[in-house]
């Protein structure tokens, strides 16, 4: 019995991801030995901050049996409105205000998604698509399209706070890891704890597994669905504001198009699109893999214009592999 368990552990989604990540690093490292340095780790960590946060949002929604394609649009509104107010209406120099308003906006749109999916019972894909256009269409219509690149002092202060500073010995370049990196780290820990040790988390798995059984068991399906989308909205809002701080840029279209990467990271990480499966560890590995691929295609000699295609190919292969694995596991009968 134990041999079987060890075997299944070694071939689990997470382990396979680990193998692939290691293999990829080796391939890149062989071509470019400079890859094996703390600089790479810092760059990957920095690049993966947003993807990781968004992936957590998406994961929670996917586990509950839904899907959310509106988070880029919600994020854009959440980052744009506070900056618009600060720059065009009244200069409020408060990080609390910026983040607070962003989170509030995310919360409101999350509630909208929750309302559409759990009260009106609309298909999540289409419902969140609708929210996406309502959000992005609405904000641009009302507030126009500008780019805000100057941060108020309080936000600038955050930008200047780095937890790791590394200077590469050869090139003399300085690599900085911002304090905001702690946000996805803490969020991962928090979400992992919630999913494993709270009835709220188990409830999400329950409704993702079988909504009717969950209802019969006494779970409040509506409340759980609301929570999933609202949580996603709130974290999206916070992440969007982090984007503004770190990238020094707030526009109405910055995050658009990211849905695919994020969903792919989740699916590759073992989260099933049908719901009820998946965990934080897998998603972290999925995000690491995708971030590695996205940021190192240059090192592999793949020209920029081909990178979208290559990423798409990898995502498609990853999806096929995880789907095949999922089917295999639900066929073995004990």
């Amino acid at each position, binding site marked *: 019995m134990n041999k079987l368990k060890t075997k299944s552990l070694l071939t689990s989604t997470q382990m396979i991801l680990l193998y692939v990540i290691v293999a990829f690093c080796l391939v890149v490292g062989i071509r470019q030995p400079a890859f094996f340095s703390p600089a790479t780790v810092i760059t990957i960590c920095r690049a993966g901050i947003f993807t990781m946060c968004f992936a957590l949002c998406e994961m929670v929604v996917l586990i509950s049996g839904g899907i959310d394609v509106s988070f880029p649009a919600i994020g854009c509104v959440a980052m744009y409105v506070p900056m618009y107010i600060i720059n065009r209406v009244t200069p409020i120099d408060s990080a609390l205000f910026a983040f607070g308003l962003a989170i509030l906006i995310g919360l409101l749109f999350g509630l909208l998604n929750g309302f559409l999916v759990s009260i009106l019972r609309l298909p999540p894909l289409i419902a969140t698509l609708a929210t996406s256009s309502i959000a992005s269409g609405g904000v641009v219509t009302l507030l126009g399209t500008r780019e805000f690149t100057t941060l108020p002092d309080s936000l600038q202060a955050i930008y200047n706070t780095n937890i790791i500073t590394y200077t590469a010995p050869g090139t003399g370049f300085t690599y900085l890891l911002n304090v905001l990196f702690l946000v996805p780290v803490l969020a991962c820990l928090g979400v992992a704890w919630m999913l*494993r*040790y*709270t*009835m*709220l*988390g*188990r*409830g999400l*798995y*329950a409704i*993702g*597994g*079988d909504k*009717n*059984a*969950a209802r*019969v*068991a*006494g*779970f409040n399906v509506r409340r759980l669905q609301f929570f999933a989308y609202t949580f996603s909205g709130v974290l999206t809002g916070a992440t969007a504001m982090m984007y503004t701080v770190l990238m020094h840029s707030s526009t109405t279209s910055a995050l658009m198009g990211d849905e695919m990467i994020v969903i792919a990271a989740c699916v590759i990480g073992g989260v099933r699109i049908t*719901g*009820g*499966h998946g965990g934080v560890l897998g998603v972290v590995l999925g995000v690491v893999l995708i971030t590695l691929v996205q940021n190192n295609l240059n090192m592999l000699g793949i020209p920029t214009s081909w990178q979208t295609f290559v990423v798409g190919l990898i995502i498609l292969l990853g999806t096929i592999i995880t789907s095949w694995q999922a089917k295999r*596991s*639900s066929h*073995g*009968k*004990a």
Partner: protein
Amino acid sequence: MADEVFLKLKGIKKSFGGVHALNGVDLEIRRGEIHCLAGENGCGKSTLIKAISGVHRVDEGEIWIEGKLCNKMNPIDAINKGIQVIYQDFAVFPNLTVAENIALNGEVKNKAKLVNWKEIHRVAAEAMAQVGAEIDPDVKLEQLSVANKQMVAICRAIINDAKFLILDEPTTALTAREVEKLWTVVRALKEKGIAVMIVNHKLDEIYQIADRLTILRNGAYVSSGPIHEYDQARFTRDMTGRDISQEKYLPKASEEEIFRVENLSLPGAFKDVSFSVHKGDVLGLTGLLGSGRGEIGEALFGIEPAQSGHIYLNGQEITIKNVADAIHNKIGYVPEDRLTEGLFMDRSILDNTIATSIRKYFHGIKLDKAAMEEATDRWIREIGVVTPSSKPAVRTLSGGNAQKVVISKWLNTDPKLFILNGPTVGVDVGAKSEIHAILRELAQKGIGIIVISDDLPELLQNCNKIVVMRDGRVAAVVDNSIEQKELSDLLMGRAE
């Protein structure tokens, strides 16, 4: 032990939109007894269960639980009174572990906010110990067999202080050994003073387990009593209201062979299967679940084709490697699960009837709609589907009428061999005999008919030849002069 009465129903009546589902039902369940509720499809069993468990309010009659009148229950009240129902689909979470499935409901009821995994494992272990189940608590439910899933559902039911457990047709998807295991568990529950009501219509299983039996027919109470007061004849008479002995199908013997299989094998399902169907035969194919009876049907239809052996249709050898081959060779198949495999519920009767034969209406450049309608109307008349026209969706039809549509679909393809898997499951008594009559007529016309079923009375009444499968091999080929008890023994392997 079993003297006090736990549940008493008197004169229960319930209608839905003018149709009487329950028309005067009495029932008495004593503490710690194993009680079987039997009746044909459409007799009101599920409505009764729903009334007892608080899902439906009854129109008339009294419900007494532990001496108190409880007519106005809702599902939570019923659970609080110790009534638990295990439905056929178990309502379990395939993506959660065994331990969670058992213990989670309890946690929800206690309004717990945090998850205490130790507690969950303890509760699960305790429940499994009580029923004697040995399942790895950390396995995800989707990886379990049906029997084990059912075991988990039972464990879940009893941790909620159940006093009365209702099992709705629990043996349908179990093999013989699993049924034995289930009875062991049920007896263990009885030892603990929990009353168990098992809804079942198979007499041999009822003999194995029941203390007492209640029979319903057409929504009304027929009879009740200790199991030893029922013999085969009384059982069938009370269930159907008829004596079956005169109605056995005895066609004229014919030499003309329609269909033959020789040494058909599919590793893991069946081995060396040989039998033949002559003109006028209605061949029964039976056996316990896992004996290969269903697998042969699906092999002949090309869903999971055989890997070796020979198949002869009207003297010619044919190969069946997929569904297209089967249809090309004029083989028709009415699947076991009508709702998910046989019908397009939202589409009209017309669409469902021509679904398989649609190509024959494609002339030149487009479909001949008029011909399609004419054919459908003809089948509706000939087979007797109760409907105002061919336009309504099949969803609006009763089980019997829907099954007739499935049959029409295949008859419209002019089959030479017609295989039906469980043709009268979920079909009311009236439609059941009509379908049997249709099959006999088709057999007389020279169409090979194979009926796969585990309903022994149905087989004995309608099939002149019965192939008994056991453990993947043909155990015997008998004619319908055999006694039901003997036939049942052959299935179980208790003959010698």
